[in-house]
């Protein structure tokens, strides 16, 4: 695979990179390079056009006002929707996840339009902010091990029939609807409330994104000793209350 290149686009780090979201970019980059791929990383600020030629688009979490601004600029730009129409992969976290849906509630308490790439609708929860470790069983179709992550959000996301939940939570809140779902996905678009960042805690998801973009079923193995040690520690810590 050494001649294959992978274009990784980090969408709007100036607005959406509050919770170590660069980590997801770094993990995809690192794991792709370890497989001999030539990675081109492109950080696109919100005053620049979104290129449509990327393979994997990563979008992170952010505060309420930047979230509204990001949604407005992405809608005006249109590039991300065109990229997805061309088969690109999107992995969106927290505020970015909400933007992938039909609408969310913005900092002004009004409904903001999202990109409609996921059949979900988000609102602001009345209950306390969801903060803490999350454990979840990933959707069978994704063939992923148990998911671990950290959530920190006020949002609630309702899933429509056009998506499947990314996971069912064993611990934590996930989508916050009380139905035990966490995140959403369809085809090549994924959304989650988990950070930590989530790809560092679940490198198998990073591999899934790379496999989807290369259209292969398997990747050469990597030495995942430290990822695995961290996963086991976080799973144990979450299940044994202090």
């Amino acid at each position, binding site marked *: 695979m050494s001649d294959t290149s992978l274009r990784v686009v980090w969408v709007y780090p*100036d607005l959406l990179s509050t919770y*170590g979201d660069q980590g997801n970019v770094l993990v995809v980059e690192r794991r792709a390079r370890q497989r001999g791929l030539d990675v081109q990383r492109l950080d696109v600020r919100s005053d620049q056009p979104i290129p449509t030629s990327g393979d994997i688009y990563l979008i992170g979490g952010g505060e*309420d006002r930047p979230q509204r601004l990001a949604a407005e600029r992405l809608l005006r730009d249109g590039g991300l929707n065109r990229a997805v129409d061309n088969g690109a992969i999107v992995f969106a976290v927290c505020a970015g996840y909400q933007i992938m849906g039909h609408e969310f509630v913005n900092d002004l308490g009004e409904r903001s339009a999202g990109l409609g790439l996921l059949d979900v609708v988000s609102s602001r929860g009345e209950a306390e902010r969801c903060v803490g470790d999350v454990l979840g069983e990933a959707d069978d179709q994704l063939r992923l091990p148990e998911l671990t992550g950290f959530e920190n959000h006020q949002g609630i996301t309702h899933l429509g029939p056009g998506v499947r939940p990314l996971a069912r939570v064993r611990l934590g809140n996930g989508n916050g609807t009380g139905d035990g779902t966490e995140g959403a996905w369809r085809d090549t678009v994924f959304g989650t409330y988990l950070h930590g960042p989530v790809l560092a805690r679940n490198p198998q998801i990073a591999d899934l994104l790379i496999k989807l973009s290369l259209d292969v079923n398997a990747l050469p193995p990597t030495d995942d000793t430290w990822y695995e040690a961290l996963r086991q520690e976080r799973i144990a810590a979450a299940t044994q209350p202090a």
Partner: protein
Amino acid sequence: MAGNTEPLSPRSRLAVTAGRAAAAVSRAAGRGSGSVIGGKVALRLDPDLLQRLAQHLDVVLVSATNGKTTTTRLIAEALRANGEVVSNALGANMPAGITSALAGGSDARYGVIEVDEKYLAGVARDVTPKAIALLNLSRDQLDRAGETRMLAERWREGLSGQKAVIIANADDPLVVWAASSSPNVVWVAAGQEWKDDAWSCPACGGVMQRPGDDWFCAECGFRRPLPTWALSGDHVLDPHGSAWPIHLQLPGRANKANAATSAAVAAAFGVPPQVALERMYAVKAVAGRYDVVQYQGRDMRLLLAKNPAGWLETFSLIDPPPTPVILSVNARSADGTDTSWLWDVDYGRLAGHPICVLGDRKLDLAVRLEVAGVPFQVCESPEDAVRRCPPGRIETIANYTAFQDLRRAVGN
């Protein structure tokens, strides 16, 4: 401008005495200095105590995400040129700790007070400061501090209508946004290495343009104000254009910036820059930070870094490779329980240093370094880590509770 001339009311005196008693009990029970519990007891008896204790003092408040404890020490040292100073030197920076510190300095002329960012507006209302020094604002403890821009907004609201002179960093757009609600600001070009919390204009949300050291928003015209004081290499430039050398025992660019701001504060209190800067040399370590400790035949320099901006400034002051570096990170409640900030720190800058990782969250550090492509060793204890380093200097960088753990382990 005089010291404590009017006596406190009987109620306030009672509150101070009760606070001291509570502090003594807390100390006797082995719960630290007792200053916070003492302050809480005293404030419950007399809610206006802080205001009353401060009214005889010329007060300067110091707030920021990073560097406020050190800057408070530097300013206190400078103002002692003109009179006695009372200060919360150990960093108890919320109203109870501040009350307790002021209650201990009845003869002082100056109050030099570090204030937690979240409490700045309230404390400023209570103590009627003569000056307020604002150094920087950046992401810190994301699981509970809320939004950095909202914090700037709260500062902005709290500072409008303030009579104090605001001494603020012109190089931090969030600080400038917060301070510019005040009519009376002295701008200091103190620099700022960390830029990732201010790419978005705090006024209008436009994308900030940052050519060189300048910054501006092309959409609304919000821009860097013209500073009258500046840090320039190893010198402070005063409003007359004179350059005064900085001699500090504290290392790093960030501390030079703290010294520049402190010199501007001192000038507002009538202490000339030369006198102020000379006096700052006396500050060697601040609550154990920057201390060099002999441990198992090594010289461990203890460095505290609590958030991405702090780690960035710390990386720029450590000795070059092959000096070994020990990193220790916890995520207890005082640190913030969310470790995702580790990914905002460019650990690639440690390439070439032998690295040992420690602390409750050493595995988070391990994955972070693995992804950065930097070799490291995971260690069980400070002793284990030090054993893996050759004799000589070791740079030790830790976040809040990890730093306290390390100090205890190496007998500091």
